[in-house]
């Protein structure tokens, strides 16, 4: 019940009250009937005739997690053993040991909010009393400094303004996770710096996240910092790629993520700030900045943030996360080293076969029509296109197998120089009858987009496999258990 560093409550009975609260005023006369230490929040003279301690700074209330007044606590040997909030006559009679206490009062009256949880005061109290849980270096602003300009000047931003990470905001952000602020989340390339939950929270504040997004940011940071994902290479490459984050699970709806209209675009705070926070961690903690280790020739706008939810509720298919071994109820992020999205337009196809054929024709052009196997892709199928497949009874596996079947090409079409294009496969593959554009697991099928529009999107990847970047799916961790516990043992 108490917070670290709390001053010990005296043994016996302890009561927290404030004059403004009607229930407190109702029970005030009773406080003369038994010996108790009384803390009054808003008025040193309340309750009348009682020698109360004025908790003017609300330190007692904050440290002992008083959420409601009146609160009655019984303390034995410095340890709280019982607590009741508001007026519950049975509780008060039992805790005080006076069976007739307040017999004339109603059985029950709800209490009022403690001043220590007043939304206007709580963050200030958290910073004042809980600030020592934060270990980050404090940067003091001079009186005339503009905090937004200061964040730019120190190189902390991605080119857009960031929310200044004050102690209050970071403490509030940390309420979004059960994890210890000093727990090491990952080692962040390229500088290989250990990042704590606190540092992720600092960058999440800057990105504009709400506390409930923090578990998602933590999961995505963990995922991109795996050796498989290889954020070092994703960052250092001259290709225009960055982490594309696909979120799955009921939690995406709980935090208001967008998998529907404009899912890949602007306008949704969760989508944009989760992706941005991950990039800010890589920049600020890992030291991955453009022009330094980030050597991208062009980059792409998604390197500010590229994060969206799969539209699971209306999907005809199992989700991406399920295809990667997770339960439908698990909250997960899948990170993919991807470029910007491109549109596949087909407004005429009425059969699944026709649609698969146009998808394959577009997917073939990825990066270079003659380059094969080395790059994966995310295929984001819009609901109107998905309906065509669903009406034909094509499940996820069928769609993928039909696409792969249409993405086989003879070596003679792909060899160096063929078709007047210098790039291509080596000469010894000239006579190969069929070479695949993608490796078998190289197309990641996702259902997302608005209800109108016969469009889908493809997102090209970077060098795949053990020498490049592998897509990584990571569970979002909550108090008590992680979504990983529900992993069903299939490929992860």
């Amino acid at each position, binding site marked *: 019940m108490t917070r670290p560093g709390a001053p010990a409550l005296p043994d016996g009975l302890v009561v927290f009250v404030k004059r403004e609260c009607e229930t407190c005023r109702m029970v005030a006369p009773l406080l003369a009937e038994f010996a108790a230490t009384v803390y009054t929040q808003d008025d040193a003279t309340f309750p009348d005739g009682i020698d109360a301690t004025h908790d003017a700074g609300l330190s007692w209330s904050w440290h002992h997690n008083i959420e409601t007044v009146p609160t009655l606590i019984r303390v034995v040997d410095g340890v709280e053993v019982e607590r009741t909030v508001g007026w519950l006559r049975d509780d008060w009679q039992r805790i005080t040991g006076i069976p007739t206490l307040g017999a004339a009062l109603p059985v029950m009256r709800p209490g009022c909010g403690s001043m220590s949880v007043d939304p206007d005061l709580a963050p200030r109290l958290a910073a004042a009393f809980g600030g020592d849980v934060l270990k980050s270096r404090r940067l003091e602003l001079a009186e005339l400094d503009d*905090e937004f300009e200061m964040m730019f000047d120190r190189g*902390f931003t991605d080119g857009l303004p960031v929310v200044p990470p004050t*102690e209050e905001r970071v403490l509030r952000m940390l309420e979004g996770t059960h994890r210890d602020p000093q727990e090491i989340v990952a080692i962040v390339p390229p500088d290989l710096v250990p990042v704590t939950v606190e*540092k992720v929270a*600092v960058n999440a504040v*800057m990105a504009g996240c709400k506390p409930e997004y923090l578990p998602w940011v933590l999961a995505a940071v963990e995922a991109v910092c795996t050796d498989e994902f290889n954020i070092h290479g994703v960052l250092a490459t001259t290709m225009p790629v960055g982490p594309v984050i696909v979120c799955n699970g009921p939690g995406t709806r709980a935090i208001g993520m967008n998998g529907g209209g404009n899912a890949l675009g602007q306008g949704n705070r969760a989508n944009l700030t989760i992706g941005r926070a991950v990039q800010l961690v890589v920049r600020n903690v890992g030291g991955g900045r453009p022009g330094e280790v980030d050597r991208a020739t062009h980059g792409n706008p998604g390197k500010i943030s590229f994060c969206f939810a799969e539209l699971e509720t209306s999907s005809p298919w199992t989700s991406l996360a399920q295809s990667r071994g997770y339960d439908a109820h698990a909250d997960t992020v899948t990170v993919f080293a991807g470029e910007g999205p491109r549109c596949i337009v087909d407004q005429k196809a009425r059969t699944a076969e026709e649609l698969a054929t146009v998808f394959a024709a577009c997917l073939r052009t990825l990066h270079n029509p003659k380059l094969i196997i080395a790059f994966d892709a995310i295929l984001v199928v819009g609901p109107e296109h998905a309906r065509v497949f669903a009406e034909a009874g094509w499940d996820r596996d069928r769609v993928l197998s039909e696409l792969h079947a249409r993405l086989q090409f003879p070596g003679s079409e792909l060899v160096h120089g063929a078709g007047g294009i210098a790039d291509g496969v080596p000469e010894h593959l000239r006579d190969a009858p069929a070479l695949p554009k993608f490796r078998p697991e190289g197309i990641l099928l996702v259902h997302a987009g608005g209800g109108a529009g016969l469009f889908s999107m493809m997102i090209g990847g970077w060098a795949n496999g*053990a020498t490049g970047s592998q897509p990584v799916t990571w569970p979002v961790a909550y108090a008590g258990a992680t979504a990983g516990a529900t992993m069903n043992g299939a490929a992860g």
Partner: protein
Amino acid sequence: MSRVVLDPTGERSVPHRERLPRPASFDGHVIGLLDISKPRGDVFLDQLQLRLTEAGAQVRRYKKPTFTKPAPVDLRHEIATQCTLVIEALAD
């Protein structure tokens, strides 16, 4: 009231290292040639090895498993203990 924000960086203090003086000759030096596994890096390094050997240098060759990741610790250790100079090839 003073305003305070938290440092979002890793708060590293990077040690400053002086660059070694340019050697006057190859005498007594072992030169490591590190291929980062980019295509045709070996072509460049073959030529360098030829020229360095002609100049009397002792040359050893090394190769990273992939150009997309930093050299593994073991490889870095091997080079550091076996060589006095290193040339790394970035190529395409």
